[in-house]
């Protein structure tokens, strides 16, 4: 019994069939059994609902989508029953997203850098972090209303149309874009902060050891290494901007066609009103005046594709290089 000789080393190794784990529900309390059933019911209904939404939108969207509808401009009238598409809406979405993210990214990155790398005095750093959380939790309708109040002040007159009596209209691509940046700000901030916090200390120490100042370290060493995180945050922010309707309705005028303001071509476009895919869907549903549900489905499908594409971009960037806190803990574990 003392020594068991090992088997011949070259025995064919075929793993045995998996035995059934016998854990039946026999020994469970009745509350546990009810919970078990409820869990399965919730899980399965989740799958069903998710499948239903995805399938339904795909079917309806593809049904009504056509080359014509995407690339032609909407009809000038409110009733959209006839021909005409939503090209203006697509342009509006793209424009608004670009403006929003262009304003949000520098501010968010700067804020994240300050909070992580400097952060003195500490009460200010905590206040800034809480502030970003508050902005993240504010309803977009309140942000829209605030934007309206803000940009109807006289000093912001160049940003939009001014009526005859001197009342500033306050609604334009620029003003809407500015408020959209508030929507995207928390996402870019969060992603950048996470990236910066997971850069290991020795990277910074190596740079300081070479005599570089803190700001130079940030510019040359840290920022390049968190670029994937910034991109992830920006993609998330863009997704949120593209899907937002309330700010568009309040701050962009939600017209069906893009309406430039003033004679200067580029600036006029930015100062003018317009619509996005979201407001187009809203207007064409039975809740708006457009009365063209088919176009609404088509536009909704395009919007869905845009959002899905942005989400895939987030995952692709994350897989390729974004550092998250999880990886550093996994390496150390």
């Amino acid at each position, binding site marked *: 019994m003392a020594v068991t000789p090992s088997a011949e080393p070259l025995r064919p190794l075929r793993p045995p069939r998996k035995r059934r784990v016998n854990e039946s529900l026999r*020994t469970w309390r009745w509350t546990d059994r009810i919970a078990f059933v409820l869990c399965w019911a919730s899980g399965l209904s989740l799958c069903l609902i998710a499948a239903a939404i995805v399938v339904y939108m795909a079917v309806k969207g593809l049904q009504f989508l056509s080359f014509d509808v995407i690339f032609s401009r909407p009809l000038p009238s409110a009733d959209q029953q006839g021909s005409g598409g939503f090209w203006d809406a697509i342009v509006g979405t793209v424009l608004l997203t670009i403006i929003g993210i262009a304003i949000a990214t520098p501010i968010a990155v700067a804020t994240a850098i300050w909070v992580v790398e400097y952060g003195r005095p500490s009460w200010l750093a905590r206040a800034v972090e809480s502030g970003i959380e508050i902005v993240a939790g504010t309803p977009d309708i309140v942000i829209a209303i605030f934007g309206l109040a803000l940009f109807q002040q006289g000093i912001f007159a160049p940003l939009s149309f001014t009526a005859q009596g001197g009342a500033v209209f306050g609604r334009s691509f620029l003003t809407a874009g500015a408020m959209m940046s508030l929507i995207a700000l928390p996402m870019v901030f969060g992603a950048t902060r996470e990236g910066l916090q997971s850069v290991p200390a020795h990277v910074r120490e190596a740079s300081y050891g070479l005599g570089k100042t803190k700001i130079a370290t940030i510019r040359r060493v840290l920022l390049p290494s968190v670029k994937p995180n910034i991109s992830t945050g920006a993609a998330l922010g863009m997704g949120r901007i593209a899907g937002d309707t309330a700010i568009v309705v309040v701050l962009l005028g939600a017209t069906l066609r893009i309406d430039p303001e003033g004679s200067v071509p580029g600036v006029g476009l930015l100062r003018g009103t317009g619509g996005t895919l979201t407001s187009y869907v809203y207007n064409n549903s039975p809740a708006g005046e457009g009365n063209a549900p088919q176009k609404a489905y088509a536009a909704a499908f395009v919007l869905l594709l845009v959002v899905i594409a942005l989400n895939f971009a987030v995952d692709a960037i994350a897989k390729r290089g974004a550092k998250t806190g999880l990886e550093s803990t996994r390496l150390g574990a």
Partner: protein
Amino acid sequence: MIEETEQTEETTPVTDDAPLAPMGPGLPPPVRRIVVDAPPTVAHATAVNHGVRSAKEQAAGPVRMTLEALSVFYGTKQAVKEVSLPIRQGEVLALIGPSGCGKTTLLRTLNRLTELTATARREGTIALDEQDIDQLEVTELRRRVAMVFQQPNPFPMSIFDNVAYALREQAMKRPGKSVVEPLVVDALQRAGLYDEVRDDLDRPALRLSGGQQQRLCIARAIATRPEVLLMDEPCSALDPRSTAVIEALIGDLRRDLAIVIVTHNLQQAYRVGDHVAFMYLGDLVEYGPTEQVFGEPRAQRTRDYIGGAFG
């Protein structure tokens, strides 16, 4: 790089005169080349002085668990190769061996914890009190075979709730505090922790020191009076003082339980174990009473390991 060792020309400390204590007196063992995949050999028995061992001999109790030709596979890799062992009540079985030899896998198989890993498969039988553990409900098995882990893992609750956890959750109907409290106090006393925490049992468990947390985990494991206690390197994360306390505790606990302890600390196995099983790359190389395995190891590989030739 790998050569056959020549047994007849050993210039090793294994002579009639040199004591084979786990560490040679001041002399590092000579460098030996190890044959990795050769079958283990049985050395000639030579009479050797015993090392110092003060544990009292205790008549071992009935066999509580038996392993018969147990093999464990992770996917196609075989981690444990046909091991057969008895586990008796009233004694401590120490599993020793270098890293990766399968001792932790073997231990985790005893309470079917390997089933948490998706790729794990098992062959052979394990019997608890003559009953195949596959016939038992797995929760029932785990109540009779408790486990203490390498890293102390008290739950994020108070000390009282930690120890009472098993008592409350295992029962069909949640027992009231008056029922649970004496059992909790008893478990803490048997684990040697009661005197240190008696003033406030509602303190968060995570505020205890490492050694105290490990004793809390032991108290938690023995609160429901299991039959077998499995310990996976319980002292490896602790300082020497806590280690000494827990080793004394093991000596006390083994009266009522069968204890299986995995350790890579040979001295600890020598101090604590009644029987020792030495494993190497999934094989059970040697099994026997502690004095015999440390004093007169029959396999050459055991001799090498205990002599410190590899770790």
